[in-house]
């Protein structure tokens, strides 16, 4: 586990704040407003974190690099290359020579140090507002093990991101997805998990039976998925480490996994009987299921609002797939999608402000967002097949998959800002689809 600790690193936040008025009169606080469309990424410098001992040098370099990759990967920040640096940080506690960093136009400076003691690793960092010549927040220290060193880097990056944007971070998080291999007509699909950046992938099912559509709990502790182990699609629950696998009893002919309730003790399934599919709320402990929709339509892909009070799902009750919102207890759904085309796979933002979806129109697939009342629809991507958006823990980024056409085609996982900018592929070993993003890890 990674534990934040402030021991011994308090920089005197009040003193820093007292120093600010002088600078604040000259400029606004160092802050990137990510809602306003960042055209020019904020330049920052991140000299290699100082190794407390020679044994820590390798990890110090790697932690620095992962942290830099996290920040640059957002599209909001630009790293000033090391070779352009004039200043050197050889001692984490020595005063910073701001002139050296101002001269290369670094607006933010990240300094850090890494200590290794056996399997224990600690990473400390400070964030500096170069032009204000002041620290931005307190120094922080994170403790972990050598096996979780990437999490330490993500924790530092999350703290930096959070201070510079005012938003929560999203780097220290996990993603459940489907790893795919083999020819298109007989493709093997297995459930896997990875870090948000594609690192540390672990396959959880053996691929002998089709496994589809994982839903990751926000705690990242468990995963629901749809598996064909019995020959027919049914819902399985599995621990994020691969243990505790359990088949959930089905009340119909087939059942598909939807989203977890916020309490993670219940989840939504779509259950099919006689060609009609309805939404069920299932208690994961007892298996007890309660129908929330009734009828002959295909109601499927249900997920909860973050407060657990509402459910968004897709239904073809009006003739084609459209998005509906209903109370968590069931009852009349209100249609919220009214644009051209079909709408599917709705996912409520953890911030509550938007619903992401797949839209099919004019033979193209899009990832889009709209407000929960259906207003403000914006399409963020377009391709032959874009599908299955899943929210970053901070509700600012979406992960989805894009499948290329034809015999040799296959899916890859991407991220995109809710602004539609900064489309990036998440590196995976082979074809990968159906990402489901956890919340920020504890």
């Amino acid at each position: 586990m990674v534990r934040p600790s402030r021991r011994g690193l308090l920089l005197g936040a009040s003193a820093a704040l007292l120093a600010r008025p002088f600078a604040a009169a000259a400029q606004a606080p160092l802050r990137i407003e990510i809602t306003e469309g960042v055209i020019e990424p904020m330049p920052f410098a991140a000299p290699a974190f100082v190794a407390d001992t020679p044994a820590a040098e390798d990890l110090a370099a790697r932690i620095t690099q992962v942290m830099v990759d996290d920040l640059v990967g957002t599209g909001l920040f630009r790293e000033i290359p090391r070779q352009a640096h004039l200043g050197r940080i050889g001692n984490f506690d020595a005063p910073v020579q701001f002139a050296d960093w101002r001269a290369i136009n670094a607006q933010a400076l990240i300094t850090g140090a890494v200590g290794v003691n056996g399997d224990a690793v600690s990473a400390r960092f400070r964030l500096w507002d170069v032009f204000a010549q002041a620290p931005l927040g307190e120094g922080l220290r994170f403790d972990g093990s050598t096996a979780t060193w990437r999490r330490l880097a993500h924790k530092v990056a999350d703290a930096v991101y959070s201070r510079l944007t005012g938003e929560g971070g999203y780097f220290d998080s996990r993603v459940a997805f489907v790893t795919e291999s083999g020819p298109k007509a007989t493709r093997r699909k297995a459930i896997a998990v990875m870090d948000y950046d594609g690192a540390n992938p672990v396959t959880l099912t053996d691929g002998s039976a089709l496994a589809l559509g994982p839903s990751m709990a926000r705690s990242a502790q468990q995963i629901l998925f749809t598996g064909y182990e019995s020959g027919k699609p049914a819902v399985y629950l599995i621990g994020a480490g691969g243990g505790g696998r359990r088949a959930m009893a089905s009340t119909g002919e087939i059942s598909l996994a939807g989203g977890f309730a916020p309490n993670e003790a219940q989840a939504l399934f779509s259950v099919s009987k006689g060609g009609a599919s309805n939404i069920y709320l299932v208690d994961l402990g007892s298996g007890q299921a309660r129908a929330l929709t009734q009828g002959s339509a295909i109601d499927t892909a249900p997920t909860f609002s973050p407060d657990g009070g509402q459910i968004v799902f897709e239904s073809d009750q009006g003739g084609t797939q459209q998005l509906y919102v209903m109370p968590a207890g069931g009852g009349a759904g209100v249609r919220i999608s009214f644009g051209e085309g079909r709408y599917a796979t709705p996912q409520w933002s953890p911030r509550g402000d938007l619903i992401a979806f797949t839209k099919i129109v004019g033979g193209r697939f899009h990832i889009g967002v709209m407000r929960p009342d259906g207003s403000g629809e914006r399409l963020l991507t377009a391709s032959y097949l874009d599908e299955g958006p899943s929210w970053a823990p901070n509700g600012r980024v979406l992960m989805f998959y894009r499948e290329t056409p034809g015999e040799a085609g296959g899916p890859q996982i991407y991220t995109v800002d809710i602004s539609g900018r900064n489309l990036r592929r998440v590196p995976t070993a082979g074809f990968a689809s159906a990402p489901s993003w956890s919340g920020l890890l504890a």
Partner: protein
Amino acid sequence: MRGTRIAAAALVLGLALGACARAPIDTGAGFSGTPGAGALDGSAGFGTGPVTGGVLPGSTIGDTVQFAVDQTTLSPQAIGLVDAQVGWLLANPGAIEIEGHADERGTEQYNIQLGARRAAAVRDYMVSRGVPDGRIGTNTFGRARPVATCADESCWSQNRRAVTVVAGGAGV
């Protein structure tokens, strides 16, 4: 070759249903077999290998009906073929499973449900024609098991299908 198959299917239909007044099956549009691919020369070899749509065991009755985009109702052509399948089922014992499939132009989860509904449509029709409900199981694979992999309608139409799979027989 297609003509041979249709004639045979019509013959089986006639035998199974007696003096049926139903019009002859007019086209092969309900079949997903590939004309000229050698699949109709005889019954040997079915059930193995990458045959795009097979036949019911010991017959020339196609095992696959196709559907229009995002539709689950049986076309007249599909009904003609399912009628022939019903004839075969009434003459042969054993359980079957109807597998529903979809093309890749819909989302995964919806397509699984769409496949389930296609399978149910075939089952319901068979039951209405006298096949005992208990003999017919259904399953769905959505878009996960295409028989044709190109990126245009010529392939998508083949993948929007329901396949009648005889337990222990062809088409598995």
